[in-house]
């Protein structure tokens, strides 16, 4: 077994990163030209890393499965990005952002990494503004902020409801500038299918050209994965249709450890499911909770009347409405963190107070429109309201929105140390695909921050430090047996998929699996459910490999083949998620074990036994995964019960 060493620099928390930078190894400009870096993924993390590494003078090869790097799923982020700028002078600081992030993550993340994240957050905003990101501004011309769940200060920067788009286009522009300068070569419509390891170090990848189907080999002195989250395992999620866990899963199978796989985030404000042909769920930004009030009827007969439309929401008098978040959590009200808000919605619906199909609650803007006026609301959320109306065919200015929780983000991912390196030397993971800084629950507007922190301000230092030891390594030919073997195994796998010629489409199996995953490894989990999930997933895996039908050929554009490979991996990831959820006998953040709750239904953490990162190691297809523990030590923060009531 590899020893888990997080390589956290010595010294006081606030000085660790400065010390690292002061003592890190550098690569001279002449040597940078001789070094190749592979970056898989062009979201905020991948694009910002590629751009920064190209600017430094390395040769960078960038890959994405979409037809353009600009379409990475970061584009869909709506609400905003956090930074401890304290522009509104409301008491924010690096320490407070650090504290909020650790607390929001329910004390399951690493202090040193989170502190660094908070520390570089301010530079991200400077950088984005310099790159022309049109953030919202005050009349005075200064940048505007808003508040987000889990915080009592306003530290969120935004560009209407399209923050992710604008940040990504900024990073994409920077990346394309390096393409123009010849420092970056980019490969769109190309999917990574395997990792190549030579003498214990990551040295390349095998890809499939999604237009011609050709398998290709690429060498790099180091490989960076920035492939986003695996939330699409659930079939229905807010993730893009092509989002996948395949790249990190292949890395896992080659020796990169996987941390906290069961930590996924369920977002409280999504448009509810409407039919069984549905392909994905749409998020309504959390920022709506700033002005919207969440409620369900107080009486179950009212709920029933609303469900069969004999009553309208407007028919219910104020005293017949239960603003349950304001009632239960007076200090944070509608702005409690996502996991708390999601569970509260589930709790009300399970108790029979749900509206719509029964699995929905109201998000109401009536008071906000009364107090602030329609124009202000339109300015703040116009495009979100419009999006809602297009999908649901109801006007949220007139009638409350209906929302329900949905899978949205993965806190779990490849285990990385302080350098963002996985347990495979030379393999780095950044952005959502690493196990990240968010512990058991991520605060809103912090994923964009982390992606850009990793890509712009952390990896360019730590990767250079690693590459300083590689300057004497010549470029390796892709004819080496390690490349050959990896390509052959990918090809075998593809042929195997075609040879099955079963009866069920890939989507049909995915849907079945996703529903089970949602039921048993979703918002609330329990021992017997997880145990039966493990059995069912292994049966489903068998079913997949016996009965899946992949149409078309391998040497052509073939989305069915792409999906098949991804779903095969999702089922295996799901198994590991269930295993991880089963071992964690506590409730923390997004992970809620029904056995571990207080009489009031609040999550109960078990710090004595579970204050660790669960780090999984792949053994072999016929052997059990092995779990290691990275203990979490809190030196600067006093661990407390997460309380959003007072």
């Amino acid at each position, binding site marked *: 077994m590899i020893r888990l060493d997080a390589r956290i620099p010595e010294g006081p928390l606030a000085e660790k990163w400065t010390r690292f930078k002061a003592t890190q190894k550098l690569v001279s400009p002449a040597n940078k030209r001789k070094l190749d870096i592979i970056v898989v993924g062009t979201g905020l993390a991948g694009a910002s890393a590629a751009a920064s590494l190209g600017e430094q003078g390395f040769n960078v090869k960038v890959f994405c499965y979409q037809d353009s790097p*600009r379409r990475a799923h970061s584009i869909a982020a709506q609400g905003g990005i956090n930074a401890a700028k304290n522009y509104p002078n409301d008491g924010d600081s690096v320490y407070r952002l650090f504290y909020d992030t650790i607390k929001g993550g329910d004390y399951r993340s690493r202090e040193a990494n989170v502190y660094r994240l908070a520390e570089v957050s301010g530079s991200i905003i400077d950088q984005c503004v310099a790159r022309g990101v049109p953030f919202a501004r005050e009349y005075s011309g200064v940048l505007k902020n808003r508040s987000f769940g889990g915080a009592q200060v306003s530290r969120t920067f935004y560009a209407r409801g399209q923050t992710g788009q604008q940040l990504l286009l900024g990073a994409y522009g920077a990346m394309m500038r390096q393409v123009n300068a010849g420092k970056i070569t980019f490969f769109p419509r190309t999917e990574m299918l395997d990792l190549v390891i030579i003498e214990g170090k990551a040295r390349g990848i095998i890809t499939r050209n999604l237009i011609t189907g050709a398998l290709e080999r690429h060498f790099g002195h180091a490989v960076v994965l920035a492939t986003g989250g695996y939330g699409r395992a659930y079939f229905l999620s807010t993730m893009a249709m092509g989002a996948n866990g395949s790249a990190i899963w292949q890395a896992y199978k080659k020796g990169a450890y996987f941390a906290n796989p069961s930590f996924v985030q369920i977002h409280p404000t999504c448009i509810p499911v409407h039919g069984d042909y549905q392909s994905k769920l749409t998020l309504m930004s959390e920022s709506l909770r700033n002005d919207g009030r969440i409620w369900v009827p107080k009486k179950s007969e009212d709920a029933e009347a609303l469900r069969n439309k004999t009553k309208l929401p407007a028919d219910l008098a104020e005293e017949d409405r239960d603003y349950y978040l304001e009632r239960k959590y007076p200090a944070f009200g509608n702005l409690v963190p996502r996991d708390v808000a999601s569970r509260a919605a589930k709790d009300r619906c399970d108790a029979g107070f749900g509206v719509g199909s029964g699995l929905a609650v109201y998000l109401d803007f009536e008071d906000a429109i009364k107090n602030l006026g329609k124009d202000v609301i339109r300015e703040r959320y116009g495009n979100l309201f419009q999006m809602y109306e297009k999908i649901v065919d109801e006007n949220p200015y007139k009638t409350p929105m209906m929302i329900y929780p949905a899978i949205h983000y993965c806190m779990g991912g490849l285990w990385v140390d302080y350098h963002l390196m996985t347990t495979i030397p030379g393999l780095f993971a950044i952005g959502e695909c690493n196990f990240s800084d968010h512990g058991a629950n991520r605060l809103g507007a912090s994923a964009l921050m982390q992606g850009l922190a990793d890509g712009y301000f952390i990896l360019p230092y730590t990767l250079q430090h690693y590459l300083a030891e590689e300057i004497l390594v010549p470029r390796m030919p892709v004819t080496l047996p390690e490349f050959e073997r990896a390509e052959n195994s990918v090809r075998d796998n593809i042929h195997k998929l075609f040879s099955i010629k079963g009866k069920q489409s890939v989507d049909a199996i995915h849907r079945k699996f996703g529903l089970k995953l949602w039921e048993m490894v979703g918002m609330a989990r329990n021992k017997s459910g997880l145990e039966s999930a493990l059995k069912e997933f292994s049966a489903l895996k068998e079913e997949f490999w016996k009965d899946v039908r992949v149409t078309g050929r391998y040497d052509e554009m073939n989305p069915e083949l792409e999906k098949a490979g991804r779903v095969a991996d999702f089922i295996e990831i799901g198994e590991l998620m269930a295993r991880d959820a089963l071992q964690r006998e506590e409730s923390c953040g997004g992970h809620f074990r029904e056995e571990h709750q207080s009489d009031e239904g609040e999550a109960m953490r078990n710090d004595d036994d579970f204050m660790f990162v669960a780090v999984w190691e792949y053994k072999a297809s016929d052997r059990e995964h092995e779990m290691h523990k990275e203990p979490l030590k809190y030196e600067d923060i006093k661990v407390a019960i997460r309380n959003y009531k007072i």
Partner: protein
Amino acid sequence: MDFTLKIWRQENARAKGRFVTYHVTGISPECSFLEMLDILNQQLIDKFEKPVCYDHDCREGICGACGLYINGRPHGQDDGVTTCQLHMRRYRDGDTITVEPWRAKPFPVIKDLVVDRSAFDKIIASGGYISVSTGGVPDANTILVPKEDAELAMDAAACIGCGACVAACKNASAMLFVASKVSQFAKLPQGRVEAKERVKKMVAKMDELGFGACTNTGACEVECPKNISLSHIACLNREYFKAKIL
């Protein structure tokens, strides 16, 4: 609801394409256009036929991947929506719907309804950015930007790069796409510094890649799913004129 679909099928870039007629039945009005195509594809898979290829990813109108020419209009008949945001309730039961890929020389068909839009990336690479590197930039509030300018820049920046403007234009001009980037940066003090260089390079690249000239038909603005205004083309022309003449 039941529909008859006439869909463009083309094996690959070199093959000849043709329309093939399909029928789908029992479609719910809540179903999105792409979900309706998913249902069709499921039917094809059940018969061991090849499903229809089309680009899509976010399915919420922001990534710009989807783009179908539906009944002669990019992204269908609705204003201000992408193909993935179109719902079947907008059609009448029994309708016949024709579905084609973007038709424009600079966007060759790859397969069925999928086209190659890499020309857009090439235009951006030629100059669609502000040339600063990571690090060494001033505090974000050092340069104040009037709210109005920031809003105008954001209006332009809303472009999703789907290519509907090119598909809608009889000249296959990419003016609205280029204008949205030029105009976004022209409105911001950070972008003004290289405004002249930028507009010259981007326009030259657009011409080189075979996009046609703009003859002010305004079809691009009408079909743009993000309602990007023609006034940005006026801004582009102004910027170009300033760069070339002044």
